Structure formats: C-alpha cells, structure tokens
C-alpha cells in the first residue's frame, strides 16, 4: 500500500443514466485533485437506464484505491472495476483526423493511413478525414505522422475498455 510509484488505471463505472451523474463523477475528480487522462460516457442499457463511464487516470496505488472507493460511494454508481488490475482487457479509442494537403504529401498521407488501417470517411480535392481505431499509442503515433503532412484537426473519443473473456462487469 505504501508504494509511491505512479501507475495508470482504466476504470469502468456503471451508473444510473440520470441528469447530473457525470457532473458528480467529474466533480469528484476535480474536487479531490485526481487526474483524468480521458473520460468517455454513453448509455449502454436503455431499458435499465444504465450508462458506462470509462475513465483513464493515474496515481499511486493509494490514490487509485481512493478513487475507486470515492466512486463507489456515489449513490447512482452500481459497479466500479479497475480493468488495469482485474485481468486482461481490451482498450480502444477512435479518432477522426483531418489532413489538408496536396501532391506528394497527400499521397504519403494515404499511404500511411493504409498502413495504420485508417479509413478515409470524407475526401475533397484538398483534404481527407481519416477514421482510425486502436490503442491510445497507435492513435497518437498516427496523429504525429500526419502532422508534417497537413494535419489540421483531430477529434478523439477517449478510451473505451472491456474485459476479455465471458464475464460482464
């Protein structure tokens, strides 16, 4: 419990889909000075009014335990799971990346997109919008490569994650 090493944690939180629940979670992080690397939220069970929040955070083991305990304390929170330590899991992020260029740069952008399995979802004479999914690192690498090739805009979803194997959260 006393380690001062900082680790990353991907935390999945099932909450009631009700007004204010996101403010509660975000307020908890800002009010207590915890880090948010990314946060995603969407309803996942319409009938049961449940939303799933995925938060990527970092801190010492003691802080991450605190974060989980603080989340569990919120009344509309059903389950909190630290995917990073609770067995194998898959993490994915999606990005839309706009590149405006012509000539060699345009060709090079397409070539790299192909290597990264990014799809062009919009194209004009002077631009592409690529859709790419994968790990945070893969997306960042792609964006970095696009920078000299005319990168003008990026929109990223933040991480969504799920455990491997048959069990639900």
């Amino acid at each position: 419990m006393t380690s001062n090493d900082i680790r990353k944690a991907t935390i999945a939180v099932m909450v009631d889909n009700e007004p204010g629940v996101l403010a509660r979670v975000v307020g908890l992080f800002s009010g207590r000075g915890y880090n948010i690397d990314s946060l995603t939220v969407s309803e996942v069970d319409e009938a049961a009014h449940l939303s799933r929040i995925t938060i990527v955070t970092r801190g010492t083991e003691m802080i991450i335990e605190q974060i989980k305990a603080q989340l569990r304390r919120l009344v509309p929170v059903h389950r909190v799971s630290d995917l990073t330590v609770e067995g194998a899991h898959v993490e994915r992020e999606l990005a839309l990346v706009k590149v405006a260029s012509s000539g060699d740069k345009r060709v090079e952008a397409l070539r790299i997109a192909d290597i990264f399995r990014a799809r062009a979802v919009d194209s004009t004479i002077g631009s592409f919008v690529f859709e790419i999914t994968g790990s945070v690192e893969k997306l960042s690498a792609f964006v970095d490569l696009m920078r000299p090739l005319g990168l003008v805009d990026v929109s990223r979803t933040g991480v969504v994650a799920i455990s491997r194997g048959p069990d639900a959260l």
Partner: protein
Amino acid sequence: MAQDRMTGSEILIKALSDQGVDVVFGYPGGAVLPIYDALFQQNHLRHILVRQEGGAVHAAEGYARSTGKVGVVLVTSGPGATNCVTGLTDALMDSVPVVCLTGQVPTHLIGNDAFQEADTLGITRPCTKHNYLVRHVDDLAHVVHEAFHVAKSGRPGPVVVDLPKDVVTAPGSYTPPARARHRSYNPRVKGDLSRIEEAVDLLAAAKRPLIYAGGGVINAGPAASQLLTNLVDTTGFPTTLTLMGLGALRGSHKNFIGMVGMHGSLEANMCMHDCDVMLCVGARFDDRVTGRVDAFSPDSTKIHIDIDASSINKNIPIHVPIVGDCAYVLEDLTKVWKSRQARPDGKALAEWWDRIERWRARKSFGYKPSADVIKPQHALDLLNARLRERDDVYITTEVGQHQMWAAQFIGFEKPNRWMTSGGLGTMGYGLPAAMGVQVAHPDALVIDVAGEASVLMNIQEMSTIAQYRLPVKVFILNNRWMGMVRQWQEFFFGGRYAESYMDSLPDFVKLAESFGAVGLRANGPDELDSVIDDMIAAPKAVIADIRIDPDENVYPMIPAGAAHNQITMSPDDEVKLDAAHKDEGMVLV
C-alpha cells in the same frame, strides 16, 4: 381514490410524517409558499421558524446528533438555498444526517435566470452526500423516502431535495416508504470475518495496544458505545477518542486516556506515537489527529473499522482494513475474542500502563490558577462539577479555544451529548445547534460553550430561542479576541495580531435582555459560582458573559506539521519544531 387528489405539498408532508419527522427547521419564501400553506393546514409536523437559513441547518444538525434521527430543513429557492451551503458542508464533514428541502422555481423556468433561481443542485453537489431535483409530482414521495434512507444509512450525511414550485402544487399520488433494496446504494454493515479474526490475533498479541475511536461510534448508535465499552473492559486496553468521538467511552472510565490530537492529552498522543497495535474504530485519521503523517505512529500495526471504504488508507496506510458498521464489527470482534479465549499479554500491558501513568501524572491539561482573573479552564472545571450532578446535560460549542477547553474539561458520560463542529470548524454552529438540541429535548440542560466572536455569527437565533421559549444557556468564555487566531499569531506570526481583536463588542447582558433572556456576567473568579448557579437555575434562556484571561492559550499543542512526540506542554515549553518542519507546518492550517 382520495390519495390521488393530493397536491405535491400534501404528499411531501405525508412522506415526512411517514418518515417519523416531528419537527422541521425552516424559513419561508415564494417558491415554498405552497408547502407552507400545507404545513399551516395540518398538525403532525412542528415548524420552527429560524432567523436565517444557516441557523436552520445547524439546528437540524444539533437535533440529529443529539437524537440519532434525521434533522429536517425547509427553505426557499435562491438565497434560501445558498444560505444553507455552510451548514450542509458542516454536516457532510461531520457525517450528520440531514434532509434539506429547498424550493425551486417552476420546472419550465429552470435555467432562465428566473427570480430567485439558483442552481441548487450544482451548488450543493459537492457539499451533500447526494441531492435530487424532483421533476414530476409522482416521483416526489419516493424521492423523499430515498433521501431519508441515504441521509441516515451507511456513513450519514446531508441530502438536498430540490422542489420546483409547479411540482409541489401539482396533483399526484402518494407512495409509502418501501423496503425494497436500492438499485445501486447498499452500504455494507457486516465486516469480513477473516479480517476480524486477524484483528483479534493482532490485539491479543499486542504489547502496547491502543484503541482510537471516533465519531463513527456515535453515528452507529448507543449500542456501539456499549460494545466499545465492553471491549475496553474485556481487554483493559487504553482508549483515546477524537473530538467527534467524545462520549463514545465514558469520560470517567479508568481506561480513557483523554482526547487525541493537536490539543489532546500528552498520554493519548504519546500512546498514538508509541503503540504497537492500533485499533481505529470509526475515526478517519484527520490531520488534526495525525500531525505529521510520515512520523505518525511509526511502529504500529493498524486495524481500521469504518463503514466508508474511502476513509481507510486515505491518509495513513492500514494493515487490516475492516469495512462495516462499527456496531456489527465490534459485536463480531468481541465474539471472536471470547470464542478464542483470547487474553491480552498481561505483563506487557501492565508495563504499558506504567508508562501511560507516568505521562498522565504530568497532567497535560493543567493550568495555573489565578485569584484575580478568570481562567477559562477554571470556569469550565466549576461548570463541569455542577454538570456531573445531573444526567440531562447536552453541550454544544462554537469554534476556537473555548471549544478545545470544553473538550478537555467537560466529561461526557454518554454518546450524543456533545455537539461540535469538528471537520469544517464552523464558527456560529453552537447557538443554533443548541437550539435544535433543546427542541429535541425540551427539559434538558443545553449549554452552548461559546466564544464571543463565534456567537455573534448566528446571534440572530436568540430571537428564535425567545419565540419558542427554549431555555438554552450560552456560556461565553469572553476573551475579547478571536482567541484561537490570536494564539496562532502569537506562536507562528511573531505576535503580530492582525485583525484578531474583537472591538466594539455588544454588552452581552443587555443583548440577552433585549431578546427576553437572562443576562449574567462574571468579572472575577469570586463571581463564577453564583453566575453558574444562576444560569443553571434560570427557567429560561441565559447568556452568561464570563470575562476570562485574554492571554490564555490552549495546551498541550502539537503544532501543524509536527509529530506527536513534539508536543508543547505549557507556555514555558518552546514550540518544538525544527526549521524544516516549521516551514512545512506554516502552510498547514
């Protein structure tokens, strides 16, 4: 069906009655007029009209903490709600169950900057355990029942229910309280048995054990205090209490070694520092208790019983965490102790007590008596002597030196008899809290031990006290200073007393009289006995202005940022802080 014809306001009142509410502290305004109209037409619920909404929340806190029930507040939208923020934060910090009903503008105007609109939900989100906006009249009863459940179960706390005006006027149907399990909120009360067994093994093997208990024992109800007392009796272990825990073990118990922390006893703090096994029961390792965290109880194995997992391992690493209600856990722990026929290490314990007795013999709460000027400790000693004769005493305090002296010099033989603002340290808490206690216990002796600066923060409540003929006693230890601030300026800011002198104070005797109360004054030690007697004997409210030594400081003191064994015992003691920790301590509060 007749019930279908109820208005939102009637539903609200029925829900409150079904929750066993008998009194509401409140203040009317536009958005809650329909509720007040419904209150007017019934006679189950008593309404106490405060003079400022902040007073209502503290009154509800006093009511709650002295009864174990939920305190209820009713205020209007906008300024009515924002005036409650301090009280709600106070209740959150000290785990006090309060339900605060706030009026709101009609739903179709929310977000339009309507007259007396405030984002009550947004403003109170960080200072409540939970809050609700009721959007449909048919949800109203259910939400109110849930609010009470959340306020009083698990770790208690304040809950706000925001009530738009159209919702409380709309017709709707009532739903009675249900026993159904909550969808997501189900605090755990039973502790993990294997952890409890581990705790018993550690305690039985301890050579220098310490029980450190806090407000959680009070929260868990009188049965928990009894179980704690039994455990102390069975083991013979020394036991300290936090400011919030006073009364959880009776003050006169031979194993009680005094309050711990910044202004706690030498023996309690030395035990904290030197113990080898610490059993923390419903306390939260607050920085007023731990002092310097990296020097906190360096050699002990720590067991922590708490209903809130987030209290465990927050400030101090814990070896044996036990999540559960301390009444349930203490019961199981005692059972395991007995079934294993565990025995404390008698020889080691005797040696430990020898050391404790030597610390005790230094009488860390001692003071130099004076024949000319009233020493606050002496005034409280005399008061305490009179209080020991009776069993119906409730003490509240404001915040400052007087609060610490009250904690040190008044003995609490039972839980729920001591109401103080610990976590937030809210000046102005004591008078309205005393009012709430007196409403709950009309025949009891309720005393607010006050400082002259703090008491002015909610002095308007003297008017409420007059209206309801509440015989609250205000015992002001009047040093003409914001004493606690003055003490820090003396110790840490070179005696530069910036803005801490209380100029232009009212004549408290005349002030009392203007509110129809009795005003008394003691200028010197020879007047103390009669003033205390007259105060206790008076059948109505009293303000007793006790003119104390303006220069007296609270001892012992562990300066912020210091370790327990760097305790300062008296004015003759240097503040023991090396330069590095002094700088560190300076930024602490």
